[in-house]
């Protein structure tokens, strides 16, 4: 949608600074918009306000200590971030993770996907202009999930619960009941969102045909996750390169058609339904057993001169860990491949030619977590 301005008098483009301390930028993201009237002509993103050197910190910490830093790179889906890290360590250390630990990990990761997508739905609703209602609804459902995480791991956001080899400690006795209980409220929450937004004419008018990105462009820019799938590319690492036991699970990968903001919303909502079904299947297969391998060394040391790249499907896309070991109990190099950073590359392409007000919605629809972008 390109709108021409009236050609008969001379106008000057205006630079508008958005962020970094602005709630609509989802953290400390700053962008400079060059606008001609209401139309965005150029967009210059500035990142790095939240850089803490998480990769470097991990290189100075052993493999158990590193888990805590991984939580903080992706604070809305910490279980998924931890998972990539411990899987990378396990791949190099050739650790066999017990079955029970794998199932619990899968359940927790999917639950975390649900809580992260609820956060998206709420924040996105605010961006679109339905202040309050969806945000508080999302918060209510997310609260139930976070309470569950707290009962299991002890913390509400920075779980530090996965360890190379398995889990830090056993889940509480009523784990299965509690997960099923939470899924009931999650289902209700998803239905509420569906009723609240999906067919709401005002919402549709704000989101349909806004911020379109084609499948070719999306692939070119290295996008991943729901943001890519909304453009019609069926790429889900859980399906294409199954890790853990995802190959034994029956689930679908919802894709969009148009690649617009609405598709990015609906793909996430459908993905949540799939997550619920994955969790139910996992719960059926959960059996008793150890959660850590036998003969686990007290201090894990990796073999020398090896490297590995592990990627998993986090709620925002491909979360990858590149780990190089030169022996010892610390990584020699650790690189986090963040999905948000790659997805953010598309912001300019999506926003140029759109209204200023839509630029915020487009940013919201990418669902960035700045701590993951900057690390």
């Amino acid at each position, binding site marked *: 949608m390109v709108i021409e301005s009236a050609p008969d008098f001379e106008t000057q483009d205006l630079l508008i600074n958005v962020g970094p301390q602005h709630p609509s930028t989802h953290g400390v993201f700053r962008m400079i918009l060059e606008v001609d009237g209401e139309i965005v002509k150029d967009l210059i993103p500035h990142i790095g306000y939240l850089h803490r050197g998480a990769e470097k910190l991990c290189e100075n910490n052993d493999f158990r*200590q590193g888990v805590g830093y991984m939580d903080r790179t992706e604070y809305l889906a910490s279980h998924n971030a931890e998972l990539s890290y411990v899987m990378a360590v396990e791949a190099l250390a050739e650790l066999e993770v017990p079955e029970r630990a794998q199932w619990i990990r899968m359940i927790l990761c999917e639950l975390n996907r649900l809580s992260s997508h609820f956060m998206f739905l709420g924040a996105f609703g605010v961006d679109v202009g339905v202040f309050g209602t969806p945000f508080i609804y999302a918060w209510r459902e997310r609260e139930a999930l976070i309470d569950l995480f707290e009962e299991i791991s002890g*913390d509400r956001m*920075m779980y530090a619960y996965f360890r190379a080899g398995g889990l830090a400690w056993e889940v509480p006795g009523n784990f299965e009941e509690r997960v099923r209980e939470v899924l009931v409220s999650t289902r209700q929450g998803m239905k509420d969102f569906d009723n*609240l937004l999906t*067919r709401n004419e005002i919402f549709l008018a704000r989101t349909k045909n806004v911020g379109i990105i084609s499948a070719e462009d999306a692939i070119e820019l290295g996008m991943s996750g729901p943001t890519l799938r909304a453009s019609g590319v069926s790429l889900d690492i859980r399906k294409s390169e199954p890790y853990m036991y995802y190959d034994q699970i029956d689930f679908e990968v919802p894709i969009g058609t148009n690649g617009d903001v609405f598709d990015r919303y609906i793909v996430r909502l459908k993905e949540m339904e799939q997550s619920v079904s994955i969790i139910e299947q996992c719960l059926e297969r959960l059996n008793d057993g150890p959660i850590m391998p036998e003969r686990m060394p007290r201090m894990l040391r990796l073999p020398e001169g090896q490297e590995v790249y592990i990627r998993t499907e986090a709620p925002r896309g491909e979360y990858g860990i590149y780990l190089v070991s030169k022996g010892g109990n610390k990584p020699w190099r650790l690189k986090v491949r963040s999905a948000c950073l790659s997805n953010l590359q598309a912001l300019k392409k999506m926003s140029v030619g759109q209204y200023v007000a839509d630029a915020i919605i487009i940013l919201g629809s990418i669902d960035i977590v700045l701590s993951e972008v900057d690390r």
Partner: protein
Amino acid sequence: MRGIIKSLATTMSTFIRGPVTHGYPSKHRELPERDRAFPLLLWDKDIDEPFCTGCHACERACPVECMTVIMKDNPNHESQDGNSKRRKIVDEFWIDYGRCMRCNICVEVCNFEAIAMNNTWSGHETSVYDRADLVMDLPQLMAQSKSDEIQEWVAD
């Protein structure tokens, strides 16, 4: 139009739902047993001394280096005609709560089950005016365990 009416119906349905919020701070939510606030030292009531032997294991394992431990000979040891089996005991112990990232590693590495994460509200409501007040010393770290305030949950 039908979509908007449906949205409104969803909003209206909340009138018949009960509130989900708690009236914090006048009413506190119940915390689960595993809740992790900040680490605390535990008090051995049988012998009346800390469990901690000052072995520095937690200090070395802490990712953010927020602990400082000083060890001393136990004046209450059996060889000194005391009733304790601990040859060494903690002399001074500081934990900087301002730096602690509540990762539970110190609890996991301790061989004497001498340290535990505070799982009461007192561990969460620790706001102070001066950051230096967040550096807890031995008496402060012991207080909750001495007065039986914490319900213990030590991860294995």
